[in-house]
């Protein structure tokens, strides 16, 4: 009997595989679909611009988009926007990095080892219940008013969603998949590297995104603590000097930077998650 006849490749295959990709936008739609998200903010901005232009509002407390754009251009031209943005981004990156490393390591250990989980998790859950802003006086006393206290506050904010995400994801890995690793005699570290880590990757990315979002939230709180630069400082400066356009410009810069950071995280993780079989990956309901 030939090899070909012994295989069932040549038979009419009643169980042919599912189509590989469904409902993935192609061509122009691929670029046009993300633009749908711009419709609402652009419509709101145009509406507000028209309201001020037609005299329905004086736009003093909430300046129209044209004034905010002019303020942004002025801040950019003077180099202030760049200086404050860089200061904020660096704080977020350092705090995020520290929070992610500590959160991942402790989350992985607590997820893998029941003993460690029983040892550290109750304490960490109690610490998680403390409002972040309550740490500020202590951090200033311990670390001073400069960068260390700000970065620590951001790291604390990032730590908890990452820790919880990693621990929860490891605990919810399918036992049957872990059993495959055991059947192939994987050692503890190999089981973590070849089964647990890939299995938790989708949840890990979600935890990182939550952590990053909190990082941006906490940097504002941190920069309210007597910073001399940073987008948070621009907010406080705008409030104290009565410059609402500067406040809105700083808020918009926060939004743009936060969106770019999240987009970069999603883009970086996407190649590692191509295998996922989930509703969202197939474009949802269109």
């Amino acid at each position, binding site marked *: 009997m030939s090899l070909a006849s012994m295989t069932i490749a040549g038979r009419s295959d009643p169980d042919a595989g599912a189509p590989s990709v469904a409902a993935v936008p192609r061509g122009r739609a691929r670029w046009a679909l993300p633009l749908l998200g711009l419709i609402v903010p652009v419509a709101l901005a145009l509406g507000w611009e028209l309201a001020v232009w037609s005299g329905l509002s004086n736009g003093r407390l909430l300046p129209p988009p044209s004034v905010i754009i002019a303020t942004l251009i002025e801040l950019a031209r003077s180099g202030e926007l760049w200086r404050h943005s860089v200061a904020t981004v660096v704080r977020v990156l350092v705090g995020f990095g520290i929070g992610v490393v500590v959160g991942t390591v402790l989350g992985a250990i607590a997820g893998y080892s029941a003993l460690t989980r029983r040892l550290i998790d109750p304490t960490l859950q109690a610490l998680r219940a403390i409002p972040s802003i309550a740490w500020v006086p202590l951090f200033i006393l311990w670390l001073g008013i400069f960068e260390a206290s700000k970065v620590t506050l951001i790291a604390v904010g990032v730590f908890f969603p990452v820790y919880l995400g990693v621990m929860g994801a490891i605990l919810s890995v399918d036992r049957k998949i872990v*059993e495959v690793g055991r059947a192939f005699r994987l050692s503890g570290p190999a089981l973590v590297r070849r089964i647990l880590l890939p299995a938790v990757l989708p949840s890990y990315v979600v935890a990182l995104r939550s952590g990053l979002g909190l990082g941006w939230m906490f940097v504002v709180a941190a920069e309210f603590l007597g910073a001399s630069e940073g987008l948070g400082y621009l907010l406080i400066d705008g409030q104290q000097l009565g410059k609402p356009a500067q406040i809105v410009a700083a808020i918009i810069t926060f939004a743009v930077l936060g969106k770019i950071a999240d987009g970069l995280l999603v883009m970086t993780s996407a190649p590692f998650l191509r295998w996922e079989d989930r509703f969202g990956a197939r474009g949802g309901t269109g």
Partner: protein
Amino acid sequence: MLTLDRVSKTYPNGVHALEAVSIAVNPGEIVAIVGGSGCGKSTLLRAVSGLDVASSGAVSLDGIDIRAPHEKIGIIFQEPRLLPWLTVADNVGFGLDHLPKAERAARVATALARVGLSDKAGVWPRELSGGQAQRVAIARALVPRPQVLLLDEPFSALDAFTRADLQDHLLDLWADFRPTLILVTHDVDEAVVLADRILVMQPRPGRIFEEIACELPRPRDRQSAAFDFAKRRVLAALDRSLNRKAQHHPEAKAEPGAAMWW
């Protein structure tokens, strides 16, 4: 030779799943284990695989005590259990990490060709049908060339035609290097098609009730009178194992896979 010597298993919750099961399986032999639900078939298989350890008694392969998964023993589960983050080829090569890359690739390619899925090497498991995924699982289990292959109801989730197809295909693959096969199944047809010996188990606690030799020549004709007779013997033994009055078994002549014993 694979030997089970008075293997018993009691779970921490007090369930007595196995009671002093002793079996000796010759190299290259195909043994099917059938029995009513809860008779300890899967528990027995897990004890042989080393995934669970017997409460008492011993499992040994050529004199080696099996108390943990062993390189000479492979297992195929009821579900394919493919790793979704690995391509089909990487899934098949999962147990070959110790080999040089070129040799691993060659063995994976050969294994995929043998299960008729060469064209699926680079796709993700989510893109496979149930039958294709189980063929990949078979290739993954066979590619390290285990001396003993355990199959825990491997085709039970498939439709009757795919199941019959894969049963024949499994025999083709078995003929390559003739590993010992131990198959747990609810399907009496499947047991008679594949096995040299059929062990009927009795529940509460699980033990071997009867051993039926199945010496029909291969390939076995599912429509033959001899096949029908063998099936009736197994069904009658199953009835006796459950203290049920022997029944007339009209399904014995039905479609392959119709004689499911639940």
